[in-house]
C-alpha cells in the first residue's frame, strides 16, 4: 500500500532526467509508473474484497500516535481505482498531446506527483495525512493549470489556488477542532469519541466548505471554467477525480454516529441542486468547447452532491455511481475535446464543423460521451441519474409535507438540468462534427494511436456500464454504499430494482441496439446507388447566389450561437448576470478590499532577506516574551 502511494513520487524524481534521452521515453516511463500503481491498487483491491479492509500503520513520532495510517475500505478503493486508472490514461494521452512542447519533464513529474498524492488522499487513514495530500493535490493543480506560464494560465492557476486554498483553511480548522475535542485524528476513532451532535455538525460544515471549493460547487465554482487553459489531460484528470465528493462521503462515515443528519444532508442536496442548475445552464451558451465541458462538469458534480445529500441508500448509491460514470464520460469528453483542439488548433466551436469524416473515432467516442452525459438510455449516465431522480422522489415520499415538495422540486430541477445537458451536448456535436467543413480544416487527420486508445477504452467502459450497470453496482458502488450508509442496491441479472421501480438496462439496450444494428445492416444490403446528390456537383443551394462575393458559406451555416438564441432570450436575466461577470464580480470586489488592506501590510515586504530575517527574530522574541508572560 505504501509502495502504491510512494511509487509515483519516485517516478517523478526519475522522469525528469530521462528527458535527456528522449521525450517520448519520458512519457512512456511515466505511463508505465502510473500503470504499475494501478496494478498495485488492484492487488490491494483483492485484499479489500476478501477482508473488507486493508490497513497499514507506521509509527513515526510516538507522541502524536500513528501518523502514517493508511486504511482502505470499499469507499476509498472506488475513488482510488478511478484516480489511478485516470492517472494512467491521461499520462498515456499526454505522450502525443505534449509532443514538441517545452517542459515535459516538469509536466510528467507533476502529473505523477498529482496522481500519487490523489491516491494518498484516498488511502489515508487519518485526517492529518489526508490534509497533507489534499494540499499537495491543490499545489499540483496550481502548477499544472499554470503549466505554460502564459498570462491567461497564470491568472487561472492563481484563481484556483486562492479559492481552493482559502477553502482548505476551513478544513484545517475543522481538523484542529477534531483533535482538540477528541484527541485523535484516526478516522476509525473520531466518531466514537465525539459525542456532541452540534459540534460534529460544525466540524462537518467546515469540511463541506473545502469540499465545495475542491469540487467546484456553487458558489465556489468560478475557478474551474478558467482552469480549462490547462492541457486537456490535466483538466480531464482534475475534473474526474472528485476529492470533494470523497470528503463528503468520508465525513458521513466518520461522523455517522454523532451527526444530526437532516440539516447537513439538506445543505449538501441544496448546494448540489443549485450547482447543477447553474452549471448546466451556463454550459448551454458557451462557445469554447473546453468551457462547455467545464461548466457541464460543475453541473454533473452537482448531481453527485444531490445524490449524496439525499442521504438515503439509493441516493448515496446514485451519487457514487454518478461519480463513477461521470469520471468515465467526462474524462472521455475532455480527452475528445483535447483531440479536437490538437487537430484543429482552435477551441472555438464556431470555427469547427464537418469533422465527422475526418476524425471518425474521435467523433464516435465524443458521441458516446455526450449521450452518457445527457443521460440518454442505455448509456451509463442515464442509470445513475435515474437512481438520483428516484432517490429524491423516495425522499419526498418519506419526508412528506412542504419539505417533501422541496425534494420533488429538486427532482424536477435535476431532470431539467439533464434536458439542458442534452441540448448543450447536441450543440457541441453538431458544431464540431456536422455541417460544412471549413477550408482551413481540409487537411485535418485522425489523432495518433496513443491519443485515441484512451478514448476507445473509455467509450467501451461507458457503454458497458450503461448496458450492464449491475456490474458496477455489485462490485464497486454497492460495497462503497455499504460503508457509507449501510445497505445496498438490489440488482437483478439485467439491471436493478429500487423502491419505486426497476430499470432493466440490458433488456433496454438489447431493444434499442437490435433494431438499430439490423436496420443499418438492411440499409447497407438493399440500398440502391442513386445519382450523386446535387450539392456534390453544384454546392449547397443558398438562394441562387453561388459566387463567393455574394454568399459566404461560413456566414449562412448554423453556428453554435444559433442553438442557444432562444435560451438566452428566455433566461436573459440569468445570462446577463453571468456575462457581466457573475459571481466573479463579488469575488473581485472582495479582492479589491483585501488589496486595500494588503497594500499597507505590503510596505513591510521590502524584498531584502536581511530585513525579513530581522522580522523573524523579532517574531521569535515576541513569542518568547508571550510564553514567559
Amino acid at each position, binding site marked *: 500500500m505504501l509502495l502504491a502511494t510512494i511509487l509515483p513520487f519516485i517516478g517523478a524524481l526519475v522522469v525528469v532526467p530521462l528527458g535527456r534521452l528522449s521525450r517520448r521515453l519520458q512519457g512512456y516511463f511515466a505511463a508505465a509508473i502510473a500503470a504499475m500503481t494501478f496494478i498495485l491498487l488492484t492487488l490491494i483491491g483483492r485484499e479489500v474484497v476478501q477482508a473488507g479492509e486493508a490497513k497499514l500503520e507506521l509509527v513515526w*513520532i510516538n507522541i502524536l500516535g500513528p501518523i502514517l495510517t493508511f486504511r482502505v475500505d470499499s469507499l476509498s478503493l472506488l475513488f482510488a481505482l478511478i484516480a489511478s486508472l485516470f492517472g494512467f490514461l491521461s499520462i498515456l494521452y499526454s505522450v502525443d498531446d505534449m509532443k514538441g512542447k517545452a517542459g515535459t519533464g516538469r509536466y510528467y513529474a507533476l502529473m505523477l506527483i498529482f496522481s500519487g498524492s490523489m491516491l494518498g488522499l484516498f488511502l489515508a487513514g487519518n485526517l492529518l495525512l489526508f490534509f497533507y495530500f489534499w494540499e499537495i493535490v491543490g499545489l499540483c493543480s496550481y502548477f499544472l493549470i499554470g503549466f505554460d506560464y502564459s498570462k491567461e494560465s497564470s491568472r487561472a492557476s492563481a484563481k484556483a489556488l486562492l479559492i481552493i486554498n482559502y477553502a482548505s483553511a476551513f478544513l484545517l480548522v475543522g481538523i484542529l477542532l477534531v483533535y482538540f475535542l477528541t484527541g485523535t485524528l484516526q478516522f476509525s476513532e473520531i466518531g466514537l469519541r465525539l459525542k456532541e451532535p452540534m459540534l460534529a455538525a460544525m466540524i462537518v460544515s467546515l469540511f463541506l466548505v473545502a469540499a465545495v471549493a475542491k469540487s467546484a460547487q456553487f458558489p465556489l465554482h468560478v475557478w474551474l471554467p478558467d482552469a480549462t487553459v490547462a492541457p486537456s489531460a490535466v483538466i480531464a484528470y482534475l475534473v474526474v477525480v472528485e476529492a470533494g465528493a470523497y470528503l463528503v462521503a468520508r465525513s458521513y462515515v466518520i461522523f455517522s454516529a454523532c451527526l444530526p443528519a437532516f440539516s447537513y444532508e439538506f445543505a449538501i442536496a441544496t448546494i448540489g441542486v443549485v450547482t447543477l442548475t447553474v452549471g448546466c445552464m451556463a454550459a448551454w451558451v458557451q462557445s469554447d468547447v473546453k468551457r462547455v465541458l467545464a461548466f457541464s462538469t460543475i453541473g454533473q458534480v452537482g448531481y453527485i452532491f444531490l445524490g449524496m445529500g439525499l442521504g438515503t441508500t439509493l441516493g448515496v448509491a446514485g451519487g457514487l455511481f454518478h461519480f463513477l460514470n461521470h469520471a468515465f464520460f467526462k474524462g472521455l469528453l475532455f480527452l475528445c475535446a483535447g483531440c479536437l483542439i490538437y487537430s484543429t488548433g482552435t477551441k472555438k466551436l464556431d470555427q469547427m464543423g464537418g469533422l465527422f469524416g475526418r476524425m471518425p473515432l474521435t467523433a464516435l467516442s465524443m458521441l458516446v460521451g455526450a449521450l452518457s452525459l445527457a443521460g440518454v438510455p442505455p448509456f451509463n449516465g442515464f442509470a445513475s441519474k435515474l437512481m438520483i431522480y428516484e432517490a429524491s422522489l423516495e425522499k419526498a415520499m418519506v419526508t412528506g409535507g412542504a419539505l417533501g415538495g422541496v425534494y420533488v422540486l429538486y427532482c424536477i430541477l435535476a431532470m431539467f438540468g439533464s434536458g439542458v445537458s442534452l441540448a448543450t451536448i447536441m450543440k457541441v456535436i453538431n458544431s464540431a462534427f456536422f455541417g460544412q467543413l471549413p477550408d482551413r480544416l481540409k487537411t485535418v487527420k485522425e489523432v495518433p494511436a496513443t491519443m485515441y486508445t484512451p478514448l476507445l477504452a473509455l467509450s467501451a467502459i461507458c457503454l458497458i456500464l450503461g448496458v450492464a450497470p449491475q456490474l458496477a453496482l455489485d462490485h464497486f458502488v454497492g460495497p462503497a454504499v455499504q460503508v457509507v450508509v449501510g445497505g445496498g442496491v438490489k440488482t437483478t441479472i439485467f439491471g436493478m430494482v429500487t423502491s419505486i421501480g426497476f430499470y432493466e438496462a440490458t433488456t433496454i439496450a438489447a431493444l434499442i441496439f437490435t433494431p438499430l444494428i439490423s436496420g443499418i445492416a438492411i440499409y447497407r444490403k438493399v440500398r440502391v446507388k442513386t445519382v450523386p446528390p446535387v450539392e456534390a456537383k453544384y454546392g449547397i443551394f443558398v438562394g441562387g447566389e453561388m459566387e463567393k462575393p455574394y454568399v459566404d458559406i461560413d456566414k449562412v451555416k448554423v453556428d453554435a450561437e444559433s442553438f442557444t438564441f432562444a435560451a438566452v432570450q428566455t433566461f436573459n436575466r440569468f445570462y446577463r448576470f453571468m456575462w457581466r461577470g457573475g459571481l466573479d464580480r463579488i469575488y473581485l470586489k472582495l479582492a479589491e478590499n483585501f488589496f486595500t488592506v494588503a497594500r499597507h501590510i505590503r510596505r513591510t515586504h521590502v524584498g531584502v532577506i536581511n530585513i525579513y530575517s530581522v522580522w523573524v527574530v523579532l517574531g521569535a522574541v515576541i513569542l518568547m516574551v508571550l510564553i514567559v508572560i
Partner: protein
Amino acid sequence: MDSIWLALVFTGLVVLGGAAIVVSRLKLASVLFTIHSAYLGTVLFIVTGDPEGIYMHYLIAAMFLWPFLWVINRTSNYEEPPVLGAKASSIIIVLIMTVSNLFYNWDPLQSGYVSMIAMGIYGMVARRDIIKIAIGFNLIENGVHLFTIHLVTFGPQTPYIALVLDSATILLNLLVAWVIVGIYEEYKSLNSWKIARLRW
C-alpha cells in the same frame, strides 16, 4: 568523555561556524562550513553513538559543498559588501560566544547550540550575499540539530525530528543553489539588496 574535551570539541564547532560567517572569500567560507558540518556529524556520533547523525551530517556537508561550489564557480568568489564588516562581525561573534557561555554557565552543549543559532541569525541579518545567507541558515539548522540532541533526555523520539529537519535541509540546499544560479542569470548579482526587485 572528559568535560574539557567536550568543551574543546564544541568550541571547535562554534569557531568553525563563526569563521564561515566572517570569512569574505565565498569558496573558503563554504569549505569551512562543510568541515563544520562534517565535524558536527562526527561529534554527534562519538557523543551519542547514534549513526544517523553522522550519515545525515556528512550528507549535509556534501550536499552543501558541491552545489555551492558549483554556484560560486558560476558567479563570483568575492562576497558582496556586508552590512557590518569583518572586524565588527568578529567582535559580535566573540560577543555571542561569550554571552552564551556566561548565560549557560560554560555548559559546552547548550552554549554551543545557542551560539550556533545566534551566529546563523547574525549571518542572515548582517550579510548581503545570498550564499552567506544560505550558510547562516544552515548554521541555524545545525544548531537546531544540536538542540534536538540536547532534548533527547526529554523525549526519545527527538532524533527523528532532527533526521527530518536534516533531510529537509539537504533538499533545501539543492533548491537554494538552483534558485541562486537563476537569480544570478537574471540580475547578474547576488546582492540581496539589489535583487529586491524580485517581487510579485
